[in-house]
């Protein structure tokens, strides 16, 4: 198990090198001078040249890149051009904010989605099944920002029970979480429903019935865990997606998360911040994927032998009498 985890963490290295290389390449081809951007239009040419020298922008790109990577290895993601603060200390609190929203949203989406999926699988081909399908498709097909605006209209503008933007109080988290959560219900419902239907048709469910087990216990004890295998996979994916893809949402609700941080940094050509944000998200995605894979092993004992090769191999021989 430990060896497997270490192997997966080592995989981070090529991924991070790739991500940073791409962003570095973008930096060299986009027009505009970051030094000029920082100093503003009033600054003289000498001042700009001095700034360029200070930021190391005159070095060949490859040298800049290597310097940056060496820095990252020491936990130094550079300083934000805009504020002069270390990027890392700017990102970490924002990451916390984004993580809260993401976790809340995934929890809302997964809990509601899985429940609806189970209900529609158990009531397949009835009006309940169709109703669930319509509701979840509705939330999936309406774009997130529309849902966001409608929620703002209802809860902030008309009812005045939630703030329209910002996260000054815990209430501020509710609408962003709902927006992302509602949008993801449909995919959880669909995955859960089809997975559940497939599992309920398996022979071992019939075996359980042949034992005299009740339908409730069959669903709960025999079907649910097997059903959750593909669902866990999609929870992992959507955790990653909404963490990295919170840009529109965080902008709409003015939530100071990583998504908004990156959007702002891109507009300001604040490369250290863009790079730092992107690398951070890449690291988190890899870690989440690792956690998802580990949770698979907890759900499905068959994987213990296949995924984690090199683990302790039990040699048990059955003595057939």
């Amino acid at each position, binding site marked *: 198990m430990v060896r497997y985890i270490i192997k997966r963490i080592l995989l981070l290295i090529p991924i991070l090198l790739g991500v940073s290389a791409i962003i570095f390449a973008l930096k060299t081809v986009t027009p505009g001078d970051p030094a000029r951007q920082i100093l503003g239009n009033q600054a003289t040419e000498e001042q700009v040249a001095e700034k360029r020298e200070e930021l190391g922008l005159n070095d060949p790109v490859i040298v800049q890149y290597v310097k940056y990577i060496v820095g990252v290895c020491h936990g130094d993601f550079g300083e934000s051009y805009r504020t002069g603060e270390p990027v890392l200390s700017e990102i970490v609190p924002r990451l916390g904010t984004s993580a809260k929203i993401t976790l809340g949203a995934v929890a809302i989406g997964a809990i509601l989605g899985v429940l609806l999926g189970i209900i529609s699988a158990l009531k397949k081909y009835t009006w309940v099944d169709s109703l669930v399908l319509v509701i979840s498709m509705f939330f999936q097909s309406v774009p997130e920002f529309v849902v966001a605006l409608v929620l703002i209209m209802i809860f902030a503008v008309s009812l005045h029970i939630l703030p329209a933007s910002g996260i000054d109080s815990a209430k501020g988290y509710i609408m962003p979480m709902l927006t992302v959560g509602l949008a993801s219900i449909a995919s959880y419902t669909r995955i859960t429903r089809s997975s559940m239907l497939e599992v309920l048709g*398996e*022979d*071992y469910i*019939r*075996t*359980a*019935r*042949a*034992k*005299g*087990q*009740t339908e409730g216990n069959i669903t709960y*004890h*025999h079907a649910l*865990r*097997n059903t959750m295998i593909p669902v866990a996979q999609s929870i992992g994916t959507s955790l990653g997606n909404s963490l990295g893809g919170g840009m529109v949402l965080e902008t709409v609700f003015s939530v100071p998360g990583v998504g908004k941080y990156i959007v702002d940094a891109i507009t300001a050509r604040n490369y250290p911040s863009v790079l730092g944000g992107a690398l951070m998200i890449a690291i988190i995605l890899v870690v989440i994927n690792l956690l998802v894979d580990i949770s698979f092993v907890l*759900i*499905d*004992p*068959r994987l213990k*032998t296949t995924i984690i090769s090199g683990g302790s191999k039990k040699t*048990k021989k*059955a*003595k*057939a*009498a």
Partner: protein
Amino acid sequence: MSDKILSIKDLVIHYETDEEVVEAVNNITLEIGRGQVLGLVGETGAGKTTTALGIMGLLPARVGHVIQGSIELEGSDLLKMSAREMRSIRGKKISMIFQDPMTALNPVKTVGDQIAEVVLLHNKCSKAEALKRAQDMLAMVGIVPERYKDYPHQFSGGMKQRIVIAIALACEPDLLIADEPTTALDVTIQAQILDMMRKLQKEHGTSMILITHDLGVVAEMCDHCAVMYAGEIVEYGTTEQVFDNPKHPYTRALYKSIPSLDKDVERLEVIHGMVCDPSDLPTYCSFCDRCTEKKGICAKGDPKVVEVEAGHTAKCFQYAKEWEGK
């Protein structure tokens, strides 16, 4: 108490899908004596599994329907029972071993838990006692009891089948339905499993329906034998009667199609043609199109079941009065 544990009368089972109605079981009548083993033979699609699922009340929901008939277990009709009553019978009074051991076990539960489950359902006992019973059952079917903590994928096919048998026998059922318990296994394991089943059946006095398409297995294990064809029982009798004096042309054809060591035949005879499509059965004898002994009358009507000797029946016009001369 009657000496029959199970009696099936005029049972008809259909599978009804959007496109077609499959007449899988057509008017079968069968009895199984207490402590006896009945062999149910027939080629693929004959309706053997369907009959078994009908007895268990486990026909696929919405699709499988019992159209008519009765299935009496010790005098009470299973078809009239509530879902709750059926649950108390399944696993306790009637158990079933399914056709494919590879998929019959839940991959995410330990085998010990899966055996203990049926014990807990039908006995007032603690989880620990049930697990103890599970280990005893494993030992009984020849698996090291300590392996109760292992998952199904850690066992071989033959061992999985033993575990499935352990589940089926854990509550000492009165009637065991074994649906081709060995077809998925290789020949040496087959013999072991059958030996074990026969031993357990004798020890516990369990009545058994053994479904197979292997006549050798029937000869070895069964007291009575029922031959199924296109959802009907075309011949029924004691194993000796049916083997020594087969009355139905289909049974005779079956014998000719199995290899035998002591007869020196050039080549095996095959039964020509295909089983008729159960969604489009003929109104006349369903074996007529493949029968080598048929006469004109066979294509005109459906033969009745005739008792050809005491306890030996065949569904064929040869034993009807109309046969002579036509």
